[in-house]
């Protein structure tokens, strides 16, 4: 019927046109897809001319030509393969050319995982960056999230440190939270996974990394959702972005087996340089004499000068070695119409350059999908992994941190009689005697059933269970704790059971070819139960992992169970008109157990739209523009990532152990806040996507604005209230920024390809209100990062250092009124520096020459500051800390112009009662560019592989972090210290404190496909 109508209309149109151009030639006809459905808006033009037309609603077109002759008619339609047809027109001839276009699977078929489903990439109206498995697995890293660095615009990844298993700080479009978790929400195969970084606090100078057990080899793709349109469907928890991880699943085809191995070494990016024994003694004596003392200085640790002069221990050497790495993985996948499966088993031994430190991960995965019948599909994904972190102390806790601080070169490792030196810090003694393992067992499992009751309707039920079990075990032998009985073993098990159920219904509605609707309706419930315990066993001859405890010497303390729950309802409508115009409406209602009944539910709507401009008629003349799309969104999302139960006012448990004079007690423990509510952000985004020269050049430019209010904060309330902290919604934060990414296929020949991928982003962050509270109400603790209205979250709040007085050698500061002073007064602190870089980005160059591939990833950060919090002791008042050689540029006598003040043992010389003073003297430009990854790969010729009965062979050399350009005088410009809590993590991303530098690695790899 349609066909008849269209021909009739076409004929009428032809007649009509014919009547006005009686003598003209023309080409006319109908364009449809392979199934015969007419296509509206197909661009039909005559090659080499500006003549052309678009198909109408019935797929009909007509192009009129002045002259007879031979022409090439081009049929172009986004998402379909462009077709050409040569025609010869005689004078006054009207030639019918009907065309069936084939879908371009590469464009139309490219899908993007979004919340609770997938969308065609071109139809996505939100800001989503997709990374595939090749981009993720191109280098070894302590944890998979570190591999995102430099690969996605607007995503700042600060790798924690060189410690094995170390986590990264990931910030998507800045930071919009103060005390609520500021990390993106990680969703693995639809499961918002447990991502608590503080289950073990910052013991040992490291936060646990809940993502470390994730095997990067299992990852098929990662989608980073950035704006409200993309994150709205995760409304309550999308305020800081969402990272969707999709694991590999089987594909149709024969059994495919892959084996890969990689081995390598780990070294520090830079070795800490500390004073030698003679240098330390010289400087210590100089400080002593500067203070007006005579004779020899009293040395720290009770060491005599005679002993000290004979000792020159390089503690850094004692702590650092060459870490060994090895990785093996074996995977298999297969699929047919009935089922698909993917399975993988891998072992990773990731040794760091710190002696005794490694992270070993054994993991297995099995994913399968099974079509029960044409209406029902079931599937499951299960992963089991065990991560064993062989821990060492670092940072403030000791180890290399001690070698950079209180382990003085005048201390020996051992006394003359062979016993350990115990007069001062001896990290070797601790490291050799103290045993420490953290073992994490993790299982992330999900099952689903999809039911297709009618055409285009999918009902999906999914249940997931994320089990996390982290147990810290330590052992201190009697020699270490100076005890008369045997040693002490401790065990701190933590269990998190995270249950998640999702029910969704998804319906596609197509009205002709023009109107495509997708409706999604769903609900989700998540419940997380956390348990922990502490066990201490004395009289132990070994650690609890291999020694049985005697009950009579064992105390067990069970911490109270903690439960949190989320209940959500959500809906989404996607509308696409003629593959050119796209609109999405999404809304989610979230309830959280963390908020009281009056504020329990939050409503998070978003609207967004996209327009593929290049599909428009008026763009036909710009053939060099292969793709152009504009999209915009506005919406609201939120954050509820705070500790449980903060809304309740509480007292101690009835059975509490605190007694006075053997009498029981009860006492208030927390202030009530029934008004605690969601932190919400209003986010808007405008982006342009462009493709040029048949997509040889692809670009994307986006701007965004995020206004966050009711910011959740753990406030330091006046202690005179009887409490120290209180959770409340205070203040507001704004983030705005610009992001750019581009791909250039510079050369695209058969035997030589050169591709450049680059991205850059700039984020502006500002606290616009902090209510009635002072700068110190929310703080990054000892780092002196604070909340200052008009400055970014976690700005460095420091006393400005002016210069060293050439006459006295004393440090001169600037007081709050701008006057010079030699008194360090915290009341003179001001916001200084730039906690956030002015720009971050990455640049990837890939060259493929025949079977060789050469890949380089540079990452950079421009304009941010780093505060070296350890410098106040390494370059400040002379104490029981070793110092760094920069101190050689110090004042010695009147007239000296020096970088650092006179040496002194007295804090008053520096105008303070304490050596723990933060000033701008230790705030540095953290600009850097780093060759993050360099790899050379060789793909063996197919014939060679076949000779070995293999499908493919690939050998690789990978080096990471081998070059860094920076003016930062410290160890590594790209690290962040361990954090005390979520507030500190949000506020202190640019602080280092005795933090081990990142590792530099060299690796060889081999991949075989069977």
């Amino acid at each position: 019927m349609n066909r008849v109508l269209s021909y009739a209309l076409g004929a009428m149109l032809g007649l009509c046109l014919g009547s006005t151009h009686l003598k003209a030639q023309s080409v006319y006809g109908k364009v449809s897809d392979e199934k015969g459905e007419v296509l509206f808006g197909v661009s039909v033009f005559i090659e080499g001319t500006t003549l052309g037309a678009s198909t109408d609603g019935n797929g009909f077109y007509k192009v009129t030509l002045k002259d007879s002759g031979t022409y090439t008619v081009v049929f172009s339609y986004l998402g379909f393969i462009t077709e050409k047809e040569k025609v010869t027109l005689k004078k006054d001839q009207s030639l019918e050319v009907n065309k069936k276009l084939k879908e371009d699977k590469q464009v139309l078929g490219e899908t993007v995982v979004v919340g609770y489903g997938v969308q065609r990439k071109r139809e996505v109206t939100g800001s989503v960056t997709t990374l595939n498995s090749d981009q993720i697995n191109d280098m070894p890293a302590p944890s998979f999230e570190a591999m995102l660095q430099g690969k996605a615009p607007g995503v700042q990844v600060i790798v924690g440190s060189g410690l094995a298993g170390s986590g990264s700080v990931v910030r998507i479009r800045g930071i919009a939270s103060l005390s609520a978790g500021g990390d993106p929400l990680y969703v693995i195969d639809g499961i918002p996974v447990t991502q608590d970084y503080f289950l073990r606090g910052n013991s040992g100078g490291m936060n646990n990394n809940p993502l470390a057990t994730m095997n990067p080899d299992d990852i098929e793709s990662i989608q980073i959702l950035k704006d409200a349109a993309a994150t709205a469907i995760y409304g309550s928890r999308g305020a800081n972005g969402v990272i969707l991880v999709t694991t590999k699943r089987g594909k149709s085809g024969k059994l495919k087996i892959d084996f890969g191995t990689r081995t390598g070494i780990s070294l520090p990016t830079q070795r800490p340089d500390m004073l030698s024994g003679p240098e330390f003694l010289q400087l210590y004596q100089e400080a002593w004499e500067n203070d007006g003392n005579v004779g020899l200085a009293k040395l720290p640790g009770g060491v005599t000068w005679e002993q000290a002069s004979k000792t020159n221990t390089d503690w850094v050497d004692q702590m650092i070695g060459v870490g060994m790495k090895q990785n093996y993985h074996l995977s298999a996948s297969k699929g047919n119409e009935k089922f698909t499966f993917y399975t993988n088993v891998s072992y990773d031994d990731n040794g760091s350059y710190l002696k005794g430190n490694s992270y070993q991960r054994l993991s297995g995965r099995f994913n399968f999908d099974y079509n029960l019948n044409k209406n029902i599909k079931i599937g499951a994904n299960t992963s089991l992994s065990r991560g064993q972190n062989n821990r060492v102390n670092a940072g403030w806790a000791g180890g290399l941190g001690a070698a950079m601080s209180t382990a003085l070169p005048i201390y020996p490792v051992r006394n003359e009689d062979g016993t350990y030196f115990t007069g001062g810090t001896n990290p070797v003694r601790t490291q050799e005697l103290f045993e420490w393992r953290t073992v994490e067992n993790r299982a992330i499992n999900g099952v689903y059933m999809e039911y297709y009751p009618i055409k285009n309707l999918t009902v999906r039920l999914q249940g997931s269970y994320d089990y996390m079990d982290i147990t810290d075990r330590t052992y201190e032998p009697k020699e270490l704790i100076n005890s008369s009985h045997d040693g002490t073993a401790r065990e701190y098990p933590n269990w998190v059971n995270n249950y998640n159920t999702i029910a969704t219904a998804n319906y596609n509605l197509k009205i002709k070819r023009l109107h495509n609707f997708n409706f999604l309706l769903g609900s989700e419930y998540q419940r997380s139960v956390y348990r922990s315990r502490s066990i201490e066993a004395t009289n132990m001859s070994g650690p609890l992992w291999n020694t049985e405890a005697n009950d009579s010497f064992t105390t067990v303390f069970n911490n109270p169970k903690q439960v949190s729950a989320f209940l959500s309802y959500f809906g989404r409508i996607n509308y696409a008109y003629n593959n050119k115009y796209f609109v999405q409406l999404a809304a989610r209602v979230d309830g959280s157990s963390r908020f009281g009944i009056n504020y329990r539910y939050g409503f998070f709507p978003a609207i967004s739209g996209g327009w593929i401009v290049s599909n428009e008629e008026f763009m036909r003349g710009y053939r060099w523009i292969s793709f152009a799309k504009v999209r915009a969104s506005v919406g609201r999302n939120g954050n509820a990532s705070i500790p449980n139960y903060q809304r309740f006012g509480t007292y101690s448990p009835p059975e509490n152990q605190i007694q006075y004079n053997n009498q029981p007690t009860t006492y208030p423990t927390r202030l009530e806040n029934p008004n605690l509510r969601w932190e919400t952000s209003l986010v808007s985004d405008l982006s342009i996507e462009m493709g040029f020269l048949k997509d040889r050049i692809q670009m994307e430019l986006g701007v965004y604005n995020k206004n966050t209010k009711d910011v959740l904060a753990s406030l330091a309330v006046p202690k005179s209230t009887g409490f120290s902290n209180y959770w409340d919604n205070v203040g507001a934060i704004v983030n705005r920024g610009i992001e750019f990414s581009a791909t250039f296929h510079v050369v695209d020949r058969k035997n030589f390809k050169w591709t450049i991928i680059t991205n850059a982003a700039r984020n502006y962050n500002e606290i616009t209100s902090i209510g009635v509270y002072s700068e110190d109400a929310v703080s990054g603790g000892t780092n002196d990062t604070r909340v200052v209205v008009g400055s970014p979250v976690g700005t460095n709040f420091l006393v400005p250092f002016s210069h060293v007085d050439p006459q006295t050698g004393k440090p001169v500061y600037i007081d709050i009124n701008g006057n010079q002073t030699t008194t360090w007064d915290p009341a003179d602190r001001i916001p200084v520096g730039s906690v956030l870089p002015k720009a971050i980005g990455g640049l990837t160059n890939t060259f493929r020459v025949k079977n060789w591939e050469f890949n380089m990833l540079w990452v950079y950060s421009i304009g941010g500051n780093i505060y070296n919090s350890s410098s106040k002791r390494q370059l400040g008042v002379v104490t029981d800390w070793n110092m760094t050689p920069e101190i050689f540029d110090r004042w010695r006598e009147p007239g000296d112009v020096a970088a650092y003040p006179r040496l002194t043992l007295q804090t008053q010389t520096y105008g303070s009662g304490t050596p723990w003073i933060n000033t701008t003297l230790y705030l540095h430009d953290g600009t850097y560019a780093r060759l993050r990854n360099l790899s050379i790969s060789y793909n063996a010729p197919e014939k060679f592989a076949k000779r070995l009965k293999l499908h493919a062979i690939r050998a690789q050399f990978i080096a990471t972090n081998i070059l860094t350009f920076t003016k930062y005088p410290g160890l590594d410009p790209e690290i962040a210290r361990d954090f005390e809590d979520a507030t500190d993590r949000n506020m202190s991303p640019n602080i280092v404190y005795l933090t081990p530098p990142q590792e530099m690695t060299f690796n060889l790899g081999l991949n075989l496909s069977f």
Partner: protein
Amino acid sequence: MKNIALYSLLGLLLLGTASSCNKLLEVTPEGETLVEDAIQNKEDLQKLLNSCYDVMANSMNGRTQLFNELMGDNLDRPFNNDDFREIYTRSSNFFNSSIGGLYGDFYICVYRVNILNKEVDKLGDVTENDKIQFLAEGSFLRALAHFELVKLWAQPYGYSADNSHPGIALRREPSQEPITRSSVGAAYAYILDDLNYAYANLPDTKIGAYASKDAARALLAKVYFQMNNFEQAAKYANEVLSNGRYPMSSSINRFDNDSAASEYIFTFISTSNTDNRAGAFIENCRSDNNATPQIRLSEEFYNLINQRATDRRKQLVQVANPGTENEFYAITKFNKDYFSLPYLHTTEMKFIRAESYAELNQNLSVAISDMNEIMDRAYGTGVVNLNPGAQASEIITAARNERRLEFFCEGDRTQTLKRLGAKDGNVQIRLAPWNCNGMVLQFPISETTTGFQLNPEGGCN
């Protein structure tokens, strides 16, 4: 049919979650008691009161005493504790977490007392007598907390003529609102109000471990003495000494609970080494099992206590590592695993009565007797005594000298010097004026709310 199945399924899904949504999200904490369930009866209230004693005991476990002492002249520079060194150099700032911790603990006690006052009227099983007893004990503890707070965080009573100089935040009821500092005069008035209530309502019996009328008397004597109000100080000291319930012990070490307990008027109780209310003393001063104690005596004090060969109190100090580079003057007074901490005791009452009478030039024979009793214990009977006809000024001199020797490391010396500075002026403490800025501790950073005036810093050489 398919549609029916579909709609049923969808309906069930939505209903299943929606109907029970609030129940699914009602999660209450385990291991804690909700505020509304906490104080249900008299027993609960008693537990709350016990917790007030508990937190006060922890505040007075040596921290308060040593922080006072660090600003004075009895001690040398602490071994390596930066927080302590800041106090010692009289340059504390609002980052000092040790100071902040102590400050907060006092106010935890105040908060709990204020809660107790609020809850006491709500309980059916609390009689009027019970109520008065609860309120009186609470008042005693709140007064004690405010008294120690105002001594450490404000210039002394008498620093300004009308005592209008900044004092402390006075919390009269539980509230989360930031408040500003009241004057020192207002702080002392509040302390006296509380103590007078306690005095009027506490039982007049020997109790020791809890507040009693005698404890209120002794604390009133102490407060008035600190205010240089000798008449009232003498009155209350005399009252408590006259009832004969607390005979002075013969022990030179008041912290030896076995031998000195007879003179304890009010004590913070330790029951074992895991329930030790003298932790800060032992942790920082103990020298028999610690080669590097934080707290060491000044050379001046060591020489002072060794001035008289017969002074038995010499046993409470010793030279550590004599003749070596690491020689220091150690304290042996606290060389125990744990001990109960006498806060109010006969020895101090005798000092207060003797000096007050001497200041008033009244009852000098009683004053002389008090001093001689103390000196007999220290030097041996009759070895060093005041003459029966000693002048008031001699009594005062003896009282002040002996007081320093008797109470070293107990925080008394610094407050004595500040009191005398306020009274007489021209008192130097380690070469700095008694009223220099650093002689009071800085408030913790949490107090920096609008209108709260921090203490000025520095100025103590």
